Each structure stands twice: as structure tokens, then as C-alpha cells.
């Protein structure tokens, strides 16, 4: 009996739930402005989420997945990326998308049921929201392969949930990333629930970070409610990948304070008490306490920020609601680079269908 391999998984935290430090700050975090930037991004994300849920409830938006309580994962990850990196988000990473320059109006357009929302002006190479769980991990591997083949110092950053770690295609992508040493970092946003399925029913693995061991790459756990830890550890892994040292998995442990989506009622399957307990750990209050203690934040600033967020969101909502609908033919015209000749008849039929329905509506 010989030991042929051994492994350890670490967990990293800087900011405790009470806003005190658990470890000396990483150098970049000594810059107060940087921390404030993270704080503002988290607050804006929450303002957006709150509004989006509201718009859905009042029938002006489709189903949306709030990231309430998980803002640190999204914002910390995006802040760790460079503009030339590519983000491949799931459906709950609006915080990261906003941070990277997708506009609120564009997010609303997408979740309002209009593809034009994914044709954003911001990070043009970033991937659109991926709704089938984990199916974007292979895309991230492909993007990372492209970077590697072109010898570009860029990293593909894939964000997915605890539930997604059970998916075979995610595993296949990770395994490829490992063996090809791809510049691909996966942030597992472990919010402890996959709709009604708790983390404990998702896998017997003690941590999700250790899934990396199966693929021969490092896996690290961070406190996902500690934006400093997320930014630091994801950043370390991204820079490592950029330097050609291969992929990594970062498990960010957080908690989904909201329902799964606006179509869900989480009280069916989890206790309010559990949720309340987790409110004590949420990332925004924690950072605010810390910033305030450091003299970097105060009530005035908070009020100004909230007012600014409200304006940002409101004006985006207005723009979203005011936008004229896309022509129906867009559904055909963007499928192929050029309309294949055999599809011309269908396009003509669509045009007739539009007219027919309009007629029907008139009568």
C-alpha cells in the first residue's frame, strides 16, 4: 500500500460576517477607492435585482433570477477580470455583466423577452446569459482554447452554480481544461440551492472545490459573501491562468436569499429561519461595516449612492419600456449569416402571418 497522490482544499476569507478582518488584506485592497468601487457595484446590482423582480411582478418583465445576497460573487469575479478576458455567465450573474459594461437597459431587454438585449454595446466578446445549466462550460473551454492557440494572455471565466457541478458537460469541459492546461477559470457560485435541491443532495463531495481534483487542477473555496476574498482568489487564479499555468475552480460559498426565480416560491421547500440566519452573512452590509470602520463610507455617501442607483435603474427602465419592438422578421434574418434560398418561402410566410394577425386583431 503506497500513497500515490494527496490533496488539500483550502478556504479563504478576509472579511468576517461582522465586517472585521479575518486575515491581513491583500495589497490591492488597501486601496480604499477600489473597495468602494466593489461596494457600489454590489449595491447597484441589488438595486437592479429589486427592480427587476418588481417589474416582473407587475407584468413588465419575464421571469428573472435575482442574485440577492450573492452580489459579492458576481462583482468580485468581474473585478478580478481584465477587459480582454471573456465572461461566460449563467442566468444569475447580472452583477458581473453590469460590472463589465453590459447596460441595465440591455439586461432588461433580454429578460423582457427580446434578443436585442444580448447584442450589447459593452464587452462584445462576452457570452450571452446561459440558461441551460452548465452548457456554457464547454463554450468556455472553447474560448480558452482559442486564447491558448493564439497565445493571447486572456482568460475565459465561466460562472455557474452548485447545481451545475453535477452536470456531465461541465465535468467534460473541466477535464479538457485540465489536460490542455487551458486559461479557463470557473467560479462555482455555490448559493447552496439548485431550485429546491440543497447542496447536500447535489453531491457527496465535502466541497465543490474538490471537483477540481478529478481534473488535475487546483480547486479553492472562498467565502462568497466576502467580496475581497472573491476578488483576490479569483484574481489569483485568473492571473495564474493568464501566465499559462492552467485552469482552476473557485468555489464561492454564498447563499441564495431570494426565491430561485420570480416563478418560484422557496417557502415550499426551505425554512424562513434558514434564510434569516443567512441574512446575517450577506455581503453588502459586511463590506459597509468594514468601509465605515475604515472611514471610507458614511450615511451621506450611502444615501447618495442609493439615489444614484435608483436614477440609473429608473432611466434604464424607461428606455427599456420605450423601445420599439423588433420586426418579426428578425427571428429569421439573424439565424444564418445570409438567408438560405430555401428559407425565402418561410420568410414570406412570416410576413404574411404578421399581416394576417394584424388583420385578425383589427376585426
Amino acid at each position, binding site marked *: 500500500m503506497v500513497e500515490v497522490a494527496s490533496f488539500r482544499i483550502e478556504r479563504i476569507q478576509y472579511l468576517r460576517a461582522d465586517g472585521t478582518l479575518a486575515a491581513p488584506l491583500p495589497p490591492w485592497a488597501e486601496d480604499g477607492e477600489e473597495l468602494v468601487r466593489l461596494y457600489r457595484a454590489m449595491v447597484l446590482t441589488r438595486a437592479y435585482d429589486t427592480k427587476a423582480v418588481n417589474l416582473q411582478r407587475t407584468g413588465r418583465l*419575464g421571469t428573472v433570477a435575482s442574485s440577492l445576497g450573492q452580489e459579492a460573487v458576481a462583482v468580485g469575479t468581474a473585478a478580478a477580470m481584465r477587459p480582454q478576458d471573456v465572461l461566460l455567465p449563467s442566468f444569475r450573474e447580472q452583477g458581473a455583466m453590469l460590472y463589465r459594461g453590459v447596460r441595465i437597459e440591455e439586461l432588461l431587454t433580454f429578460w423582457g423577452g427580446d434578443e436585442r438585449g444580448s447584442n450589447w454595446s459593452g464587452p462584445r466578446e462576452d457570452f450571452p446569459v446561459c440558461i441551460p445549466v452548465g452548457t456554457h462550460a464547454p463554450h468556455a473551454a472553447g474560448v480558452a482554447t482559442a486564447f491558448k492557440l493564439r497565445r493571447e494572455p486572456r482568460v475565459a471565466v465561466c460562472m455557474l452554480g452548485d447545481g451545475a457541478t453535477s452536470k456531465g*458537460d461541465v465535468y467534460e469541459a473541466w477535464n479538457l481544461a485540465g489536460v490542455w492546461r487551458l486559461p479557463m477559470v470557473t467560479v462555482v457560485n455555490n448559493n447552496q440551492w439548485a431550485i429546491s435541491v440543497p447542496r447536500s443532495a447535489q453531491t457527496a463531495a465535502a466541497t465543490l472545490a474538490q471537483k477540481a481534483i478529478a481534473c488535475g487542477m487546483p480547486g479553492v473555496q472562498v467565502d462568497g459573501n466576502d467580496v475581497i476574498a472573491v476578488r483576490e482568489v479569483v484574481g489569483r487564479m485568473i492571473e495564474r491562468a493568464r501566465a499559462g499555468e492552467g485552469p482552476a475552480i473557485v468555489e464561492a460559498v454564498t447563499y441564495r436569499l431570494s426565491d430561485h426565480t420570480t416563478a418560484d416560491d422557496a417557502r415550499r421547500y426551505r425554512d424562513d429561519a434558514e434564510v434569516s440566519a443567512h441574512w446575517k452573512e450577506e455581503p453588502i452590509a459586511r463590506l459597509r461595516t468594514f468601509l465605515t470602520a475604515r472611514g471610507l463610507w458614511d450615511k451621506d455617501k450611502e444615501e447618495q449612492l442609493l439615489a444614484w442607483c435608483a436614477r440609473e435603474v429608473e432611466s434604464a427602465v424607461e428606455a427599456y419600456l420605450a423601445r420599439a419592438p423588433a420586426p*418579426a422578421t428578425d427571428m429569421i434574418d439573424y439565424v444564418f449569416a445570409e438567408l438560405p434560398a430555401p428559407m425565402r418561402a418561410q420568410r414570406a410566410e412570416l410576413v404574411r402571418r404578421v399581416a394576417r394577425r394584424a388583420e385578425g386583431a383589427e376585426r
Partner: protein
Amino acid sequence: MTAMTLVEAVRTALARAMAEDPTVLVLGEDVGKDGGVFRATEGLLERFGPERVLDTPLSEALFVGLAVGLGAQGFKPVVEFQFDGFSYPAIDQLVNHAGRLRARTRGRLSCPMVVRFPYGGGVRAPEHHSESPEAFFAHIPGVRTVIPSSPARAYGLLLAAIRDPDPVVFLEPKRIYRAVREEVVDDGRALPLDRCFVLREGRDLTLVAWGAMIPVALQASAELAKEGVSVEVIDIATLKPLDCATLLDSVAKTGRCVIVHEAPPSFGPGAEIAAVLASEGLFSLLAPVLRVTAFDVPTPLPRLEELFLPALADVLEACRRAMAHR
């Protein structure tokens, strides 16, 4: 006798099947405490316990294979895929294993199972939640594809599917999950598989549909009746194997056929029906066989979805066009 919605009928059939046969299991994502995202399995966990109603990890590529193993061991797994758009990983195992275990072992092993999922559009859902993939499943040898279109047929066909000794893919039209209530007697009476249902007899035109397009077809037939056109409405119900006899009999009488479905047309489910008519019913046809369908494009997001899906006006137009041939 209770007035039920379609999703309630599904739930009632599941409960009935589980009560009468201890080997029936329900598996899938969120089928337990949550009762399924559409509540099709609501109450089953409480009633039958966690060894009969099993929440799986998020692993669709696993589901059918898991059911193959369970089926081969004498269980009758009923697996729920959460939405149509997440059902594609099922195909590999359905083609390569579920549909051939019996044939491959010349009867030594078999794998009864039901793979059910909500399908179709019209509920303004996010991406991937509004697809009609029935043609993919209907092309798989050794596997039945069944689609109910009313609470009573959901009840009777799901019972039949669960009792059937072979794999059945059961697609539930989510758009009409709660559209109407119908009296359904929970008496354990199954409806026959492999048979189409003539919902309304007619002389002039055969209107073929299934799932959520049935209410549209019925409405069309009512409208056309006002114009003096007598429409026979056929609910396909079991898409594969297809009950050609009923279709051919109908078209032999009417001479005209319009097929309505939500899936894209090319290599879609309606093609088979038209093909059967073109070969075995050709000389009855007085008019072109018309398909009223979606388009050969990905299901658009809700803002354009309505124009992607066929609606009453389109069905009427096609029927009138067919009737123009005398």
C-alpha cells in the same frame, strides 16, 4: 368525478399508478418537496415517501440511463425532465439503450419507463422553456411518443404509458396545463396507446393536431362550421407509432388535410403525417396537404414568440386554402 386541469390529471394519474403498483417511482429535479416546477408531482412525496419520489442531482444526461437500470431491475421509473429545452441529453440513452435493450437481449432484459416533460410555447417563458422537440423523440426506434391534449386524455394516456412494458416519452403541453378544467374520473381506466382520437367528425377536411394545438384546431373547426365547412378534428395522441389507419380513413372521407403543430416544419412531426398521406392516401386527396407550423428558426424570446407559433388565424387561412380545391 372531479373537474381537473391537465396538470392535475397528470398528478392524479401519477398517484394512481404509484398506489396500484409499488414499482412505480418518480424521479427528476425538484419533483419532491417542491412538487415539480409545474406542481405535477405535488403531494407525491408526502404520500409515497422519499423512496418512491426521488429528487436527483442536476444531471439530465443521467436520467434515462438511470431509468434503464431501474427498468431492467423491475422498477417502472417515471422521469421528469424539467423543460423541453433540457430534454435533448435524453436522446443518446433513448436511442442507444432504452429503445433497444429488449431487442438487444432478445427479451432477456427490458426497461419500461416513462420520460415526461412539459413542452411547447405560448407561456412567455425564458429561453429554452418553449420548445416542441417531439420529432426528435418520435424518430427513435423502440420508443413511443405520446402527447395528451386534455385533462382526461392526460390521465388515461399517462396511466397507459406507465403500465406499458416499454419506454414511452410523454410530452405535456404546458400551455394548457391549467387552461381548462374537465371532469375526470379517477377510476384507473387507461386510454389506448397507438391510437389517434377523432375528436370531432367532419366531411370536408381533416384537421390534425396534438397537445396545445388541439384547442386551436377545435376552435378552427367551430369557425369553419359557420362557413359551412365540416371539419374532422383528429388528436394524434400517440405520435409514434402513428395510427395511420385512422388518418387514412379520415382523409379517404374528407379528401383534405391540414396539420397543425408548434415545432419547426422541416423534418418536423407533421412531415410524417403528410408523407403517409402522400403514399397511402394520395388518391383520396383533393387538395394539397398543408402544414401550419412554426418556422425553421430557434424559438424566439417571448416578444416575437406569438408570431413564431401557429394561431387560429393561420389555421383558418390554411383550411380555407385547402377548401378552395374542390
